[in-house]
């Protein structure tokens, strides 16, 4: 009897000690989420941003980096306008529990729609996790092997050449405009809900070309259905050694997509610091590093003030691009 009581006491002591340990490790942060974190994805399902967001969520869960789960929610409506407005309206505790995976429509959508009342520079700079790349893709059955062949085929079809992309005045639209003006083409741009849907349009030959990210076309490329014919990067990508860059082809043009995590504009400084730490851990994880390498992602981790500077530069670049395109007034 005595012995049992002793064991009982021992167990109780151990339990208390364990609780105290957990508690102290939790208490070492100034701020901790106290409810599930809404993880908004500013794009549709199956696209590059979506896949990346779900990978980040999985990394956080796998290594138990956060006491509260991240709950991914896709808000692709209106080239990300829905997501931006959603975060902009978060107040109080909600603002501290809402983060978002964002891309370049972070700049273009507010520029095009001042009525939304969203200022991208006001968002909480958590982390730029990477920069994604773009390539020009065609279907294997088109027989097109290079940019010359592409220009010839697109010229012949004129306005009937379909370029599928991810929303009006999105990254894809900007690249389409670049191609149209650089090569004297008049391709027709048709918007879809996400990069995954765009990739499928090309694989099913409902579109003639796309400017997908590598991760979006990967599956079809591996199966030999689609071919990249040129890259919008400064040098050739290890994953697609046969696709020349537009720089090599004599066009001084490169373009990247930010893969960043931002917080609601009204997020508190303590919460921001917490998320900056959290995503630094995600960035340093083996899974993220392996993914970065495998998907030919560029760019180092930046956050805080450096990220704001990065935003300012890119916001200006996009403003100029949109002015040139005629989408907004100068």
């Amino acid at each position, binding site marked *: 009897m005595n012995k049992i009581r002793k064991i009982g006491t021992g167990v109780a002591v151990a339990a208390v000690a364990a609780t105290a340990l957990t508690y102290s490790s939790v208490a070492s942060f100034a701020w901790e989420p106290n409810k599930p974190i809404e993880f908004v994805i500013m794009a549709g*399902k199956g696209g590059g941003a979506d896949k990346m967001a779900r990978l980040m969520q999985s990394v956080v869960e796998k290594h138990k980096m956060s006491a509260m*789960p991240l709950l991914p929610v896709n808000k692709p409506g*209106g080239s990300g*306008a829905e997501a931006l407005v959603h975060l902009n309206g978060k107040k109080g505790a909600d603002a501290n529990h809402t983060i978002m995976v964002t891309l370049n429509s972070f700049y273009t959508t507010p520029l095009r729609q001042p009525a939304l009342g969203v200022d991208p520079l006001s968002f909480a700079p958590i982390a730029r996790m990477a920069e994604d790349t773009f390539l020009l893709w065609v279907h294997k059955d088109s027989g097109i092997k290079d940019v010359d062949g592409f220009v010839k085929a697109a010229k012949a079809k004129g306005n009937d050449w379909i370029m599928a992309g991810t929303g009006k005045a999105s990254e894809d639209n900007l690249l389409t405009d670049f191609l149209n003006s650089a090569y004297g083409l008049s391709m027709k741009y048709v918007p879809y809900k996400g990069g995954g849907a765009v990739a499928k349009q090309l694989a099913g030959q*409902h579109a003639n070309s796309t400017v997908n990210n590598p991760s979006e076309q990967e599956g079809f490329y591996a199966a030999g259905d689609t071919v990249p014919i040129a890259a919008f990067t400064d040098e050739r990508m290890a994953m697609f050694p046969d696709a020349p860059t537009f720089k090599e082809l004599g066009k001084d043009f490169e373009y990247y997509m930010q893969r960043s995590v931002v917080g609601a504009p009204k997020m508190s400084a303590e919460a921001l610091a917490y998320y900056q730490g959290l995503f630094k851990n995600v960035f340093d994880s083996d899974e993220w590093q392996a993914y970065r390498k495998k998907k030919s992602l560029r760019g180092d981790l930046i956050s805080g003030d450096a990220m704001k500077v990065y935003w300012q530069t890119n916001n200006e670049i996009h403003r100029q691009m949109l002015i040139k395109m005629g989408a907004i007034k100068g």
Partner: protein
Amino acid sequence: MEILGLLGNGFLVAFEPLNLGLIIFGVTVGLFIGAMPGLGSVNGVAILLPMTFLVPPASAMIFLAAIYYGAMYGGAISSIMLGIPGASTAVATTFDGRPLALQGKADTALVVAATASFIGGTVSILLFTGFAPALAHIALDFGDPEIFALMLLAFATFVGLSGDDIPKTIFSICIGLVFSAVGLDIMSGEPRLVFMNITGFMHGINFLVLAIGVYGIGEMLWTIEVTRGETQMSKATISLRRIVGHFGEMMRIWKSWTLGSFLGFFVGILPAAGATPGSLMAYGVAKMTAKNPRDFGKGEPAGVAAPEAANNAASTGSMLPMLTLGIPGSPTTAILLGGMVIWGLVPGPRLFIDETVFVWSLIASLYAANLFAFLINVAFVPVFLWMLKMPFTILAPTIFVLSLIGGYAPTQDMHDVWLMLIFGVGAYMLRKLDYPLAPAVLAIVLGPIAEPKMRQSLLISGGDFSVFFTRPIAGPITIIAIILILLPVFQLIRRKIKESRQAG
């Protein structure tokens, strides 16, 4: 024969003790998550995704697929018992499941739902096993005009068959379509129909808000008025003999579940659609092809069997574009896709070649999950019936609270809860005026798919509507849809001619 060998190996993996345990556990968890209004397979899979890092990828996928399956079965339970759709995929099940429960035949509805789910699931897994790579091609061949034509067909099944009151049906569809247009436009990014600039409307009107408003709140108000608090639900009993009788009932309505299974699977494999449109279309087609269309909506078991067979078939179907094209056919498969990314599997046409063990053990586990979901579900029927024996004074507030939770859970926005209450009261009044409300729910589900597809098609064709008629797949579907819509008009004319002849 090669397929059978691969499937055999898959079964060996699926029946490993760990995997079999995960299947049974996953199905049970899924069943209860699916039965909770507002919580569906999406939530279940998202919440339990982290648990899967403890086991190998194939086991993880098997577990998540089991939850998915269980939730599909579970969704029917609250649709039938409480009249609140347990998940978006179970909306069509309320149309006839609820009236059956009110007539004291909840056991019929539950057993029919479970059996039809089992059949739908089995048919679709068989199709999946035999033809997955070929079907992936069909999914790719469906461009914008084809999907729009299919959506048109879905609308047509609801107009053409309503019979009772066509103007009221069309009015109901139009209300649903207007609601579905609210929010930010996908194509241009401009906000539309944002009433009073309330930001809650920016994200559009979630169709569960309308569905729960109509079927949870509106129906409850109606039931209170009609029965004055004395419902007959508690009469339902269950015995082995009754269960056997229900299987006899299943034989009578074979057409509905056969149709539901094939239609559901086919709609499920299309990346734009998924299980919710699939089950609604199955309901419409079952009603149209039945001998007694007028009994639908009043407690016809075939009206439960068709959507339940379809939503299970579609859930298997929607795995197909996810695995072979990397495009999820439903929100749940999007999360499964995320899981695959971290396990290092690249979904796409090569997956069936590069990862045969993974693919085939997943398929084999679907067979097992389907069987266990059926058995567990039927075993729980007495428990569910016992719950219904609670007095209505307890049941009604419970339904009300669950409706509120269901409205709040998906977006966590009080705006949606207020909207749901308004819809509930509106639905009650429309119901008193004999307006059919199912078409409005159908419209708010299909509208957001149909509208961008129409605009994309017209953008590609340069504004030429002939694109819906001249393409080999879209053309016939569009023409059938138009004939169906016009059918009641022809019948009316014929009747008028007959009458005038008789008069003459």
